[in-house]
């Protein structure tokens, strides 16, 4: 039994992506001391996804936590060590993460018509189509029952 949910939101960084969801209920930072630059492993104490690797995942979290260097550290993980996420989905993508996502060339989406933290479950297959910044983006969630 496969369930499909389609949400629409606004693209804060453009692109297409598909991957498994990793949902974190706490705010999340991308700086090297929150998510390891070398291995993409979440170090942030108390995060739901602490210890998980974000590499290739669609990471779902409320909004940013911590330093302005999150932008460059996200970029480093995506383009230098290949341990970066495939896309970001937030309630609100903070401007630190918008800058990081644009530089990294990965989509980032917010303002969805349902709360992504409640709607998306870790392990869901998520596809994002976000063709233009500031415009409508589609998030398709596929859950195997």
């Amino acid at each position, binding site marked *: 039994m496969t369930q499909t949910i389609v949400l629409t939101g606004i*693209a*804060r*960084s*453009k692109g297409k992506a598909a991957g498994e969801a990793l949902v974190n209920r706490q705010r999340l930072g991308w700086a*090297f*001391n929150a998510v390891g*630059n*070398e291995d993409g492993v979440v170090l942030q104490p108390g995060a739901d996804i602490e210890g998980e690797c974000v590499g290739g995942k669609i990471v779902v979290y409320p909004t940013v936590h911590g330093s*302005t*260097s*999150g*932008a*460059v*550290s*996200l*970029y*480093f*993980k995506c*383009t*230098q*060590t290949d341990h970066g996420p495939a896309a970001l989905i937030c309630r609100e*993508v903070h*401007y*630190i993460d*918008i*800058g*990081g996502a*644009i*530089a990294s060339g990965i989509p*980032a989406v917010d303002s969805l018509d349902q709360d992504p933290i409640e709607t998306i479950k870790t392990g869901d297959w998520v596809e994002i189509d976000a063709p*233009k*910044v*500031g415009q409508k983006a589609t998030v398709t969630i596929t859950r195997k029952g």
Partner: protein
Amino acid sequence: MTMKLTQYQQEMLDGKHGEAKQFCMDKLTDFGEAVEAEEMVPLVLTLNGVPIWAKDRREPKMASKLAVYDLGHSALYDPLFAMKDAKVADHECTKCGSDPYMMQLDKYDVKDSGPWNFEIPGKGSFKIDEEIHRAYQDGYDKMAQHGWLNWLSCTPYFNTCIPKMGEYCASSESSAACYINTILGAKTNREQAVNTVYCAYTGCLPKYGMLLEENRAAKCIVELDDEVRDNLEGVADWAALGACIAEKADNRIMAVTNLPKMMGPTATKQIVSCASPGMNDPMMHLMGYTPESPTLEAAFKGKMPKNPERARVTMGDIIEMYQRLNNLMPAAGPDRAKPVDIVIMGCPHLTFEEVREIAQRLKGKKVKEGVKLWVQTDTPSYFMAHHYGDAKIIEDAGGKIYHQTCMVMTPMRHYPAGLTVATDSFKYVKLGSGFGQKWIFGNPEALINAAVTGVFTPTARWDYWSQPRDVRQTLAMPHVGITGSVSA
């Protein structure tokens, strides 16, 4: 596209002014759309980091070194370095510079010269990797070729690039951002370090966040007790005050009242830089100092509620802040005598007045064998100190004075384990406390004494203020000043 561009901005985007400007404008317009900006603003200051340049970042040996030394920003510059025509914004009013990083470049090889190259007998040594040094020098040279002025300073606003009221800046250095907004009246976000690269080459940035008047309004009032106003002395006191103010305001922009008269650049630098780690928005309205806020009504941008929320800072709060900082990674030893390995001052970079105070306190004394005294300042103050003789006093006493460096940006977690570091920097204690060393937070008087004796001992002034109020009232207040100041 909804963002309004000037003709020149549009031309940059269309590629009429070269590949680099087009590349950067493309990124910035995307960002502008994402944050729903309506226009771009021209910048007078862009502050970012110098990259480590590597021909092949994926080569396994280099990649493993970069994982230790690179903050993540270096590769951002690669596409720009690969473009032939790349130059930073060429308007005479737009200045592009860099934060401090790892070493004083011309002293890399000088033994025992600072945080990048030192040995502590019996504890171990540290020297920055040679290949990284070369790669860093390469990054520095490439930046210079593109027209960056490599300030290597977190305080360019004192003497190198001084924005005026109402002008726009892009500072990825949080402490500089808070000073620029609060004391100079120019406008900047804590700009993320991706945008600042693109800002430099285009000279502009989408108008968003703290660049918009309505986002700069105070939301509450923090009032100092008279006792606080009248008794703060010394760098660490100002730092503790900044931290207390931010905490009381609970991540909101605040108006601060009942401040001392005649706070100089050192005091205001400390207050704002220590507030910024506790705040998302780098702005305080320091009444009597913040140019855009001659009145409380102005600080609230005309929207002051009838009964604005108020909080107070007491001497008890200041003392408690000292105690909390000293408990983050407490140094070993009894409370009244903790052995130290490194005494460091200069985060944010020391003003020339601070360098001068250190020299005066050190005059005629010797730093204890095996203890490091590191005095870190910006390039203009470094050369002033050499010109006026303060540097000679510090070095004759066995201390080191240097510029271009930020200790926490050197890979401190690879220092010998278990060192005790004493500092007057709130930021060092906060940033460095996860890296395995032990920390002491105190004022310059006590720090110089620690460097000379090898042991940190609280001062008489600290003993006085750390007593409960009823006990304190029975004691005489100690006076132990230098150049008219008293310190804990």
